[in-house]
């Protein structure tokens, strides 16, 4: 690692209760930082947040003012983002001579073979072990869980491990280890930590020069939105990062480097859920996991989408605003949010404006967001359509990037479709609404004939491409069959 020429170095992180100075150039990720200080349990398997071998636990604030141990991919997280934070790695779960219950169960049940992915699994499992709702889920576990939300008899949500890959075991012993866990013992210090408030978000401003490249770098985490907007107004080229789950991939895989980064994911002004008669407003800096918990199914389409969004490890870091901010055509939230007629609140130093999400995307990774603007909130208009669905077409059921994603929000009154909104992803350079199909449906009777009649129109809505995920022909076929699938789901659900 380069010896950084430091102008100012105040960044510190507590790892396994020991304080470390955060060193290295600004693009240094948390994984390389930890390994650099000799904590080699977390490992690099893919460097893009797909395998979870690098998972660690970070103490994050919970909605009620307590702390939630949150598992994240350390390979995507800038080390500087840990300033003032508390981290636990697999090494830190060992208490003197005794291993953690998660470690014990994994070891004795054959949950490790080569062992390389294991410390990451341990951290994901430990975070789920301490999940405060788990005890309640355990008592409810006898009730049949739906197929995308498997809970063990101890309330352990197996999808908490969907971002951890194992190439050796076939997963069965890991599942058994997870389901064998009890609840934390009364004297458990890691559990006790959750009862206190999380570390406050340090205001960070780090300058570093990379000795290899000679390039200066800066990482700032302002403590107020006003400060962030001022920085953005003065330096429009600053790189805005929230969860860094997209940016981290750019850094690790494509070698992207930013001269200056602006972290906004913990700004209080960008967090919070507001409900009015007209809309529900979601702060843009909410992670997907936070939204899943705090919405608790109150926006059913998002409730269907979120479990299919990447993995728990990613959802614990990725924000809803960030998924829109990248402007990616294959993000999973836009098809659902388009179906919900969502609006974005764009805020700059001079004020805020509201734009329709349907008008937001202008080209491949291009949007109407101005240089000095941030996405501050997402508004979901009320009332919500009663019939919704999120269809994600991918090779793998979880933790995969969509070939095609389709969101539906449809209202039917007296057998007639009164409103139809269909959001599409993966079939064009931007997410888009299937406007021709919507128009065809609205006013038509909600019948299989209507659905069949609209199939070709929907199939023609996109301009899909051939790539390694899917052929253009398959993507078109997915559009063609989509409405009938939606219809069949709705009929089956009656």
């Amino acid at each position, binding site marked *: 690692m*380069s010896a950084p020429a430091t102008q100012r170095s105040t960044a510190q992180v507590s790892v396994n209760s020991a304080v470390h100075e955060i060193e290295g150039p600004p693009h240094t990720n948390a994984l390389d930082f930890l390994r*650099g200080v000799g904590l*080699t*349990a*977390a*490992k*690099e*398997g*893919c460097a*893009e947040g*797909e395998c979870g*071998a690098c998972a660690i636990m970070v103490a994050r604030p919970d909605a009620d003012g307590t702390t939630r141990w949150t598992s994240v991919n350390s390979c995507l997280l800038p080390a500087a983002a840990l300033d003032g934070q508390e981290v636990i*790695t697999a*090494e830190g779960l060992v208490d003197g001579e005794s*291993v953690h219950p998660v*470690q014990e169960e*994994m*070891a*004795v049940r*054959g949950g*490790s*073979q*080569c*062992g*390389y*992915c294991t*410390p990451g699994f341990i951290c994901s499992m430990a975070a789920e072990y301490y999940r405060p709702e788990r005890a309640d889920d355990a008592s409810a576990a006898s009730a049949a869980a739906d197929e995308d939300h498997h809970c063990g008899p101890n309330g352990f949500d197996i999808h908490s491990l*969907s971002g951890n*890959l194992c*190439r*050796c*075991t*076939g*997963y*069965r*012993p890991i*599942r058994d280890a997870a389901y064998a866990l009890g609840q934390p013992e009364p004297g458990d210090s890691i559990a006790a930590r959750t009862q206190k408030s999380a570390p406050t978000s340090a205001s960070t401003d780090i300058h570093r020069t*990379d000795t*290899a*490249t*000679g390039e200066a770098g800066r990482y700032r985490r302002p403590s107020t939105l006003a400060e962030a907007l001022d920085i953005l107004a003065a330096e429009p080229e600053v790189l805005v990062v929230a969860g860094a789950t997209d940016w981290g*991939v750019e850094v690790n*895989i494509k070698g992207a480097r930013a001269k200056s980064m602006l972290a906004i994911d913990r700004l209080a002004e960008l967090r919070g859920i507001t409900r009015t008669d007209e809309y529900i407003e979601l702060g843009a800096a909410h992670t997907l996991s936070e939204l899943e918990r705090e919405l608790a199914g109150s926006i059913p389409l998002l409730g269907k989408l979120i479990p299919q969004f990447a993995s728990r490890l990613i959802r614990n870091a990725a924000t809803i605003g960030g998924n829109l901010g990248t402007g990616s055509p294959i993000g999973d939230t836009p098809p659902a949010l388009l179906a919900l007629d969502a609006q974005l609140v764009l805020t700059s130093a001079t004020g805020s404006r509201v734009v329709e999400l349907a008008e937001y995307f202008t080209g491949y990774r291009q949007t109407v967001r101005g240089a000095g603007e941030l996405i501050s909130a997402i508004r979901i208009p009320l009332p919500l359509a009663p019939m919704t669905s999120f*269809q994600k*077409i991918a*090779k*793998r*059921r*979880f*933790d*995969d*990037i969509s*070939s095609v994603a389709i969101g539906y929000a449809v209202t039917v009154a007296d057998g007639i479709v009164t409103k139809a909104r269909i959001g599409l992803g993966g079939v064009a350079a931007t997410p888009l609404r299937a406007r021709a199909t919507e128009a065809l449906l609205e006013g038509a009777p909600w019948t299989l004939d209507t659905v069949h009649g609209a199939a070709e129109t929907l199939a023609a809505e996109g301009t899909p491409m051939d790539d*390694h995920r*899917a*052929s253009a022909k398959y993507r078109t076929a997915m559009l063609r*069959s989509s409405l*009938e*699938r939606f219809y*069949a789901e709705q009929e089956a659900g009656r």
Partner: protein
Amino acid sequence: MSHLSQRPTDPIVGESHHHESAFGHVTGAALYTDDLVGRLAGVLHAYPVQSTQAHAKLNKVDIDGAYAVPGVVRVITAADIPGVNDQGVKHDEPMLPVDEVMFYGQPVAWVLGNDLEAAKAGAAAVVVDYDTLPSLVSVREAIEAGSFHGIQPVIDKGDATGAFADAAHVFEGEFEFAGQEHFYLETQASLAQVDESGQIFVQCSTQHPTETQDIVSHVLGVPAHEVTVQCLRMGGGFGGKEMQPHGYAALAALGAKLTGRPVRLRLNRTLDITMTGKRHGFHSSWKIGFTEEGKILALDATLTADGGWSLDLSEPVLTRAMCHIDNAYWVPNIRVAGRIAKCNKTSQTAFRGFGGPQGMLVMEDILGRVAPKLGLSARELRRRNFYQAGQDTPYYQPVRHPERLEATWDQIVSTAEVEAREAEIEQFNARNDHVKRAIALTPVKFGISFNLTAFNQGGALVLVYKDGSVLVTHGGTEMGQGLHMKMLQVAATTLGVPLSTVRLAPTRTDKVPNTSATAASSGTDLNGGAVKDACEQIRDRLTQVAAGIVGAPAHEVSVSRGIVSALSSKKTVTWEELINAAYFQRIQLSASGFYRTEGLHWDLSIMTGEPFKYFAYGAAASEVEVNRFDGSYTLRRVDIVHDVGDSLSPLIDLGQIEGGFVQGAGWLTLEDLRWDESDKPSRGRLATQAASTYKIPSFSEAPEIFNVAVLDKAHEEGAVYGSKAVGEPPLMLAFSVREALRDAVAAFGAESEPGGVGPSVELASPATPEAVFWAIESVRSPATSGAAATGAAAASGDAARENPEGISVPS
């Protein structure tokens, strides 16, 4: 029972134990090669300059730009290699290219930097001048161009040509299927140092330390005794670290020699996936004849392995594929021709099963496709063709214990309640238009031993210290398969001590020389035999000492779990007391052990002999549910009965069976290697070169219900303590998933009738959701697809005449 296979009373083999390093794994204390970097000072980091051409003349590699990058210490090109510029054993694989690049991503030069950032920046500053040459980037292109390398063996038994004349049904077809990326979680890693005497010490994630040592030695032009290779453990190998680590280890060693500083070479995921070899994809063409009763009469097949740019292990992989095309079925007349396509891709290599899965897949695909045309269920067709006692393989090896095929099969049918579930599935499918289910069974017969007889040897070193503690080193490497725990159990059993008395030392070439790769599922058989031999030498010496102490004849002495006793004596002593006494009697307390598998012979030139010590058997039943809207599917339940002999370590064997199965299912369903076959400048580039685009099974692909049993009364005379190899065979149980998908697709067939056998379904491999979707489309609207549904006709026994595969029926 043989001496080798017989267990003493109260043995430690047979007990369930967790992995030897399990607590190291879960706490992060277990170290892997790249975890050691921070423990050394002054380490240099290596990064490659990769070819951006699939095939090109290499005019110039201009390295000056790299040296202008701060922190760059050294650039290494072919000109820097003092010894032999070759990273393989066939001398067709330059470690660094001299005048020609052979695949997109091939390393052209390496840059060593004070940190990785500097090395990367230096690599980006190297300018390579190419002249593009014509390239072949698929097995089809290579076949069309007649581009092959290596041997072209033929199996020829009986009268394949003549037998078709007697067949009631003859079918022909082609089948091309994809390879597989190993995706070991730990990518290739080496760390090389030079000590004060010039000795090279390479820590390497390698399945074959001896060959790593050989290649470091010839690249550096130094004798083997100047090179020591150590492998602490691997974060997965699966065959991908049998040959592939050598070049990187040699580069690191060369860098250390040139600079005097330790050199770390770790491939990141993208480098690893674009530079290292994979499971071979194959093209096959075949013609098969059946009797009226559905018994296989003759098979004529040509297998073409997609070998990539150099031979690597393609020849033995091809040989094993050809030796496994029969799988569990007797084929009295058979001709199989094999060849290796040479093309501009990574050089394909060993991968769990080593060609066996590819050969067997051809047969299982044939049976799945033709069963409806024979008017039989695939389950019945398979069982009807199992080997029977007295029959021999296409290479004339008698099949020992063929009754285990029926035993595993019938046990599955019974314990998995296959018939009742088939009836339930039929009802489910009748009720549901959009989703269909199916259950399928497939068998496995897999030959154990290296095809090449010489490799079937193992070595060990056992040291007993004065305090009674025991240190074992053996030639095998630990990659997660649990070999070290089995070796501890073998040593503890043979010596008669508790497990805690024995400790394993890391695998090193200066402890046990001239080892074979830990491969071919043979790690336990070979190294276990050697550990047992070393322990027996020590035990036999100690017996005399013990006899004197307890006052009984030597043949009565027993040492078990640390207690020395004899039938006719009331006196017992502890192991530690025995060792102490032995030391003072000047008894040698260490031994090197050796084992070679007896009774093997193989003639490659005529593909005949007895290359395998025994066969491992198994059977699996998989149930899937398929959604017609997108072709997606779930694996609802899997039941396996597998033959592991008398298990040495049941928990570890269970892990191998389950893990192998899921890895096989990944190969056949999800894992989708895509190469750029266009004429763009990116031609030959691997498009799926990251975890985000190459998907391996995750929790959601693991079976929802997973029942695994080992076959009872399965003692194997020919292996250590009656056990059988278990590393590879279970991978092939995953054919049941593919065949269940085929049957579920058939259930969507327009002409499928309740109780009927459904249409013949052609299914691509991997059977991704997209592939399954198109297969469903073809059976739902047969008029618009090439594959006509012939189910109804087949049911009437009249399938043969209008078949798209060109069936000919003898008049």
